[in-house]
């Protein structure tokens, strides 16, 4: 990273960042000028002190137009056809053609004028979550402003006085509008950088949805049984990996606008410290190492780390149901049951029936059973050693020696002898290991 990469302040190159849309089917053409790059190019410098632009995996950044010293942006609240992962497309709501909406990125001290056009069938507002701005700009319908009627465009204008990691979302019919995907990250870089400079800066918004297999509309009435869990509205295997360089200092900004669930996000292969929340920066004296961080509903958490171990590392919510795609939880458990005894009876009446899950549910996707239309239950990803039987709020941290040559699709090549494998019986014997040992 050098000075040449510095781009003049206030001219953030919106959308020129890592925004591989290869997996983001359904994201509409309406995404404003988002050139697609397959390469994990080193982010550009967008703020003083060499602060790099925020990368929004599977997403984009809101572009600015500078008008008389004011950064002018435009958010259009609108229905969006959205694909969580190939095979599951829904009628969602979002901004500028996507959910989450584009990441708003600016610098402390900027004067912003953000126009909000409502193309939803009902009124809306935008609340700038965590920002301290004039009360009339806070976006709570009825309290701070009248709602933006369908077809209307409102202007929000304020100066950014505190740096940090924030979010934006509607404050009108919150339950419906957020359940359908209306949200985005709002990042304010400090005028003077805090702490060591990071090389990569990611924004991930966690969310949860209820879309029963065969449905095409996220259920805004759901209070439990959320079955689609997402990072930036994508479920694994459609989540775009985070490609970083070994030894690079990396920041990940996590925001949670889920309806009901906090998400303990767990990273493998490294430990990190929490450096910020939507309330501000965490003083160094208050930081401690962690490998999981709980991101509460309606909060942001910022973590920073340096990964020294190269490889493909899992990053996921640690709630085990949150790394499943559209699993149902109401059917009786078949684990340990005699499937043949059941099959014999049921298949006579329902040809094609097959008892599943009697040995557990791993690898179930491989069975290739016919599924309801528009659904991705049991869908997982493919890994170098076989299927990865997880979905949902799961992504990969790809730590590489040469991240700039990676497009994120390749797998880490392990040095010989560094992958766990079947044990050598001779070695076992020599080590005094008896696989037939009995207990109790």
């Amino acid at each position, binding site marked *: 990273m050098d000075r040449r990469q510095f781009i003049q302040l206030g001219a953030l190159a919106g959308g020129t960042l890592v925004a591989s849309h290869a997996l983001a089917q359904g994201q509409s053409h309406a995404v404003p000028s988002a050139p697609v790059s397959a390469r994990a190019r080193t982010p550009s410098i967008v703020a003083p002190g060499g602060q790099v632009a925020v990368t929004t995996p599977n997403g984009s950044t809101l572009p600015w137009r500078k008008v008389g010293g004011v950064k002018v942006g435009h958010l259009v609240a609108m229905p969006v056809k959205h694909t969580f992962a190939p095979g599951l497309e829904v009628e969602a709501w979002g901004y500028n053609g996507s959910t989450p909406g584009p990441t708003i990125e600016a610098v402390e001290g900027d004067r912003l004028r953000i126009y909000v056009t409502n193309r939803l069938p009902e009124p809306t507002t935008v609340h700038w979550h965590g920002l301290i701005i004039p009360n009339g700009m806070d976006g709570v319908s009825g309290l701070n402003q009248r709602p933006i009627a369908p077809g209307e465009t409102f202007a929000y204008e304020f100066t950014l006085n505190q740096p940090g990691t924030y979010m934006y979302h509607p404050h009108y019919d919150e339950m419906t509008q957020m359940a359908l995907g209306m949200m985005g990250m709002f990042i304010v870089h400090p005028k003077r950088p805090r702490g060591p400079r990071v090389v990569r800066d990611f924004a991930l918004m966690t969310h949860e949805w209820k879309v*029963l*297999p*065969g449905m095409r509309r996220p259920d805004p009435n759901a209070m439990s049984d959320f079955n689609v869990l997402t990072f930036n509205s994508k479920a694994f295997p459609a989540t775009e990996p985070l490609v970083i360089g070994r030894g690079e200092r990396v920041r990940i900004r996590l925001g949670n606008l889920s309806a009901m669930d906090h998400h303990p996000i767990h990273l493998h292969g490294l430990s990190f410290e929490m450096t910020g929340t939507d309330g501000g920066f965490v003083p160094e004296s208050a930081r401690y190492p962690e490998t999981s961080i709980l991101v509460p509903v309606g909060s942001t958490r910022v973590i920073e780390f340096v990964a020294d171990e190269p490889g493909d590392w899992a990053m996921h919510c640690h709630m085990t149901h949150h790394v499943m795609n*559209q*699993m*149902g939880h*109401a*059917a*009786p*458990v*078949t*684990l*340990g*049951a*005699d499937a043949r*005894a*059941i099959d014999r*009876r*049921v298949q*006579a*009446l*329902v040809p*094609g*029936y*097959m*008892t*599943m*899950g*009697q040995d557990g*549910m791993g690898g*179930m996707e491989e069975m290739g*059973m*016919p*599924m*309801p239309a528009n*659904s991705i*239950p*049991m869908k997982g990803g493919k890994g170098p050693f076989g299927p990865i039987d997880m979905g949902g709020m799961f992504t990969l941290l790809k730590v590489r020696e040469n991240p700039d040559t990676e497009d994120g699709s390749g797998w880490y090549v392990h040095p010989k002898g560094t992958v766990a494998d079947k044990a050598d019986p001779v070695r076992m014997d020599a080590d005094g290991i008896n696989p037939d040992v009995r207990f109790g």
Partner: protein
Amino acid sequence: MKTWSSSRWKRPAAGTLVASMLTLGGCVTVPLANDARDVHTTLGARWMPGGPVVGLTSEALRGEDADAAVRALLAQPLTADTAVRIALLNNRDLRAAMHELGVATGNLVQMSLPPNPEVELEMRKPTRGGQPLQGDIGLEYDLSELILLPQRRGVAQAERTAARALTAGEVLHLAYRTRLGFYEVQARHQQLELRNRALQVAQAGYGTAVELEKAGNVRALEVATERSAVESARLAVAEAENALLDSREALNVLLGLFGPRTQWTVDSPLADPVNDLDSGEGLEARAIEASLDLAELRGRMEAADRRHGLARTEGFLPHLSGGFHGEKDEDRWEMGAHLTVGLPLFDRKQGVRMAALSSRESLKARYEATATAIRASLRQARGRVESTGRRARHVRDVLLPARRQVLDETVLQYNAMQVGVFEVLRAQAAVTDAASTYVETLLDHHRARSALEQLLAGRHQGLELGSIRVSSMSASSGAAAAADAH
């Protein structure tokens, strides 16, 4: 089975009814052959399409070769037509009806016979004197009876016409009831199969619950719930078995079968609903024209008319009888004739005439009432045929596929682990349930269709067009929709 001693009865000669009786003179036999042919002819045009009229022969009715024919028919799985054929060959009530017609035929024959002359012989011997034995011979003949003979025969003729219509109607009625009985057996067979399938579904649920309980995955509650479903299903099977048994016995009565002969089989399901319904134009007129019920009433009206005419003639015709008389007095015959004339002063058959007139008026009113009822029944039957046909097709083409789709989608949801095996089985049970509704609706359709055919063939009495129950069919069950019209 031994028929009643057919060998004791001589085969009746051919020829017209009355003539044969007269020709044969004293040799009296039952008029079965002619009666059968007569009924056959009466039915001819009215007989429903494909109907086996051949069963209605005197030979068959008297049991000759009937046994072999019945045996041959029973060797194959029954169809509605073969069942009707067997009933016509073997049903004793039908034979009784044919012999009842013989009673009317006998009356007619009797009424066609002229009165016999009376011959009187008288011998006299004076107690005194030497006079020889004297002899009288007289011949007496009831002239008024001879004059009234054609009219009396007319009455008997009309009565026999009525009786023939009644008998022909009973043939139709037997065929109709046999068809209904056969459809009922088919439906009960299918329902038993479906109840067995439902039991299988319940048993699969219970078996699954037991397996899952062994693995510790369900509570005793689920096992008990599934088991209670099995026990209910078992009860339903037992009911269906009973219903099948009942329907077979009802048909056995109509077929005149007992003993080992009741082991007949049926291997076809109820036929799909018939589409080719007549336009309905002129159906009422056709039913009125064909009606044997009305023909019977017409015959009885005519008999009453003729009884009235006879009584009038009798009332005004003085009683006449005439005779010849010969007396041998000594050596010469004295010949003479006489005529007796009764004076119709008091008894002019007023009462008989009054009774005949009343009887006629009564029959006329009944005729009109019957005609009205026939028209209503025809419209009802036609409506029923259409409605049940539409409903049956709806079940077959819409409801059943819809339930099958529910099953398919449930399997997909099951594959997606959204629902469990019990939901899959419930969806399958709903398919079976719809099939059950189809069978009952189809049975109603065939019953209505038979009723319509019966009306057009000319029989209105004993029509079974019960009331349709408007069921409150739930989403998953609908078997009750048609278990009514019985």
